């Protein structure tokens, strides 16, 4: 196989030499060594390129070696675990929802209204707490934030309970620097 390839290579190289010499020649002669008779054979550019690439590929294969014997991995353990594979991040072509959902439980929806019962009044005076009826799906940190946003007051702690009629009641103890009575006046409870 080797000598054949070499000849191909040489033929390719000679043909390239010919193109280098003759500027844009389509006609070339056969390699000088073979025949003295000037039999001009029409060798097109495409054919030349084809032969060149073929020769190049053959050369590469010789260098690379045949792939008949593959590199087999040696497994030292009897178990086979799935190897780490490429995990790509999502690149969606379109958002599934055109508009993102709006938050239905914002601070307006959390705090419904304050309580003005006698016991609630007592809480305001004595314990510095305000009592609110609150959305049942709100939790204590949510309530804290909502009250802060709505009434500008910091809550020290919040206790919640669910009334028998299904509403959530929140006892919001205010921080010492706030006065529940003032805040209640401001809101309009008193």
């Amino acid at each position, binding site marked *: 196989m080797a000598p054949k390839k070499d000849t191909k290579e040489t033929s390719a190289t000679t043909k390239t030499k010919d193109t280098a010499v003759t500027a844009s020649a389509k006609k070339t002669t056969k390699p000088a060594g073979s025949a003295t008779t000037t039999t001009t054979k029409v060798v097109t550019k495409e054919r030349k390129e084809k032969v060149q690439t073929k020769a190049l590929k053959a050369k590469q294969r010789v260098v690379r070696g045949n792939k008949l014997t593959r590199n087999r991995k040696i497994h030292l353990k009897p178990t086979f675990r799935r190897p780490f594979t490429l995990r790509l991040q999502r690149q969606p*072509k*379109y*958002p*599934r*929802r*055109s*508009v993102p959902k709006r938050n239905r439980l914002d601070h*307006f929806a959390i*705090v*419904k*209204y*304050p*309580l*003005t019962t006698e016991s609630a009044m007592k809480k305001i005076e004595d314990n510095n707490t305000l009592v609110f009826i609150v959305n049942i799906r709100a939790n204590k940190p949510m309530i804290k934030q909502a009250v802060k946003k*709505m009434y500008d007051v910091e809550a020290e702690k919040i206790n919640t309970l669910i009334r028998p009629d299904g509403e959530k009641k929140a006892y919001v103890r205010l921080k010492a620097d706030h006065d529940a009575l003032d805040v209640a006046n401001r*809101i*309009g*409870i008193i």
Partner: protein
Amino acid sequence: MTRVKCSKLRGKKPDELQKQLTELRQELNTLRVGKVTGSGGAQKLGKIRDVRKSIARVLIVTHQTTKENLRSLYHGKKYKPKDLRQRKTRAIRRLQTPKEKSIRLKKVQRRQWAFPQRTYAVKA
């Protein structure tokens, strides 16, 4: 408060609408407090309904304008968000498109061209 009208709202910018929305919601809050404390009377109580409906109107207008803008944004594009696509019915969405239905084998095409349905008429 004068009745909030949708036609008036449509002219406004989105941040103006947002501001109006927060104002309305705050008003609703104070009204609810008033309801509990027993302050205003019948007029105040009736106002609650108006305010609620105005809030609804503002939300409607904001949503409609955003949806409209998005539709024009995605117009003509191949991939649209699912809520901007035609709804119809689930079965209809899964049917073949008219183009897909019209695809025929080359063999069949040739046959149909070569041997079309002939119509004959009897000369009276």
